[in-house]
């Protein structure tokens, strides 16, 4: 095409490929919640592939209650200036103006997150209209494909943030991957019906079935507290791990952060997992996920 003297294609920004591509570069990595530039440096020094800038980690949101919103732009900019790795930040479900503000600040990824108080109980953000990519949480395949249909370029399990209990993340990863295994052997007639049942667009159901995996990168999140938790999620087939409260709510954040980074790389090497699990000090105090607690994972539609 360039041989006949045509203009070369101009640089295209904000395309699906560059949005999904950044998530591909984060694979096999750990994304850590941080609330200050100092914590962001600790995370970067430990080998985090990216940081999530927020005002309160989920464990504190859970204890303190109230409305949890997008973080202060000053605080996000402080973290952007402190590190060279990508910086993510959270917007409330459906709060597209918070997302516009985060895009203007230059964050590298927006997490439309159930950890914050939802701003809209019917609609998620239309993510196609943004140049910045979005990551969203899911509990099952239908929810994942609805988010991808709205423009999400990366998925994560919802898990149950701020608990230090990995059980919900395991449930969600098993649900998504189990459903993908089931649709992989369905014929076209069955796929039409299945798409209706899980309230997901048929074309995405078919694409997922033929790929044998989600069409975007899928991380674990919500309740990961130890190197073993992180490796468990990797062996269950996720592409990488978010650790929220688990690091900076523990006794020795720097050491735990390093250990979890190593556990995600060497997730199949039990000897290395044993070594990195030694002497990490106190893990975050866990809160069991019980029916009486506030279940953040149920937010999102």
């Amino acid at each position, binding site marked *: *095409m*360039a*041989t006949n003297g045509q203009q*070369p*294609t*101009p*640089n*295209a*920004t*904000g*395309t699906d*490929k*560059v949005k999904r*591509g*950044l998530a*591909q*570069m*984060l*694979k*096999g*990595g750990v994304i850590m919640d941080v609330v200050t530039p100092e914590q962001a440096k600790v995370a*970067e*020094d*430990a*080998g*985090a*592939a*990216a940081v999530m800038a927020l005002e309160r980690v989920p464990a504190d949101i859970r204890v303190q209650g109230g409305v949890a919103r997008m973080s202060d732009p000053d605080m996000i900019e402080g973290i952007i200036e402190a590190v*060279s*790795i*990508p910086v993510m930040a959270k917007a409330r479900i459906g709060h597209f103006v918070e997302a516009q503000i985060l*895009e203007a600040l*230059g*964050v*590298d*990824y927006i997490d439309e997150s159930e950890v914050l108080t939802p701003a809209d109980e019917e609609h998620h953000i239309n993510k196609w209209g943004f*140049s*910045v*990519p979005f990551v969203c949480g899911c509990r099952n395949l239908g929810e994942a494909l609805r988010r991808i249909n709205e423009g999400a370029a990366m998925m994560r399990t919802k898990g149950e943030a701020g608990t230090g209990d990995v059980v919900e993340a395991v449930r969600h990863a098993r649900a998504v991957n189990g459903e993908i295994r089931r649709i992989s052997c369905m014929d076209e007639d069955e796929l039409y019906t299945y798409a209706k049942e899980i309230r997901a667009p048929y074309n995405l159901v078919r694409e997922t079935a033929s790929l044998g995996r989600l069409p975007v990168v899928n991380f674990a999140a919500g309740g990961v507290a130890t190197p073993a938790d992180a490796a468990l999620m990797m062996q269950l087939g996720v592409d990488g791990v978010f650790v929220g409260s688990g690091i900076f709510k523990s006794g020795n954040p720097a050491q735990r952060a*390093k250990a979890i*980074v*190593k556990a*995600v*790389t*060497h997730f199949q*090497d039990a000897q290395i997992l044993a070594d990195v699990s030694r002497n990490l000090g106190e893990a975050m105090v866990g809160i069991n996920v019980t029916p009486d607690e506030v279940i953040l994972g149920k937010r999102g539609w």
Partner: protein
Amino acid sequence: MKIGVLALQGAFIEHNKMLARLGVTAVEVRLPQQLAELDGLIIPGGESTTIGKLASAYGLIEPLRQFAAAKPTWGTCAGMIFLAKDIGSQQQPILGSMDITVDRNAFGRQIDSFETDLKIAELGDQPFHAVFIRAPVVTAVETTVDVLARLDDGRIVAVRQRHLLATAFHPELTDDLRLHGYFCGIVKCTLQANR
């Protein structure tokens, strides 16, 4: 022919798949002993700080330097940073194998990431569709280095120094096998020369 893909963090599976499509066996490398018996190595895109720290923690820096001194090695994006001799004031472990100066995140933040068509003479007339994600650029090369591709504004985004190759973009995110084929060609030539 066996080609390793450094699998510490990042888009290593995408490289494995490209090599498989070329009929080449790809070996994931996470520990020094896994470098043995490889004929070439790809260092993938990812976060260069993360890859550097994991390489240090598991004693991979020196073995990787020795490998790159003797055998074909190709770095894409983070891998280019890792291979460079000079990355400015950034404090992070690098191999320093190529006589190039690299500027990290040279285009800005993620919203500035882009795709474009590049002219790469070594690959023929058909342009190469290149995906740049928070990409670096080469700001200076020594005379030992050949420039393979530049952006329209002249900035250098692909270089070769004998058996070493570095690209600021991600051929593994496209369907175009030509650069992987080109690298396999370097590996083949090196194997024949050493026979």
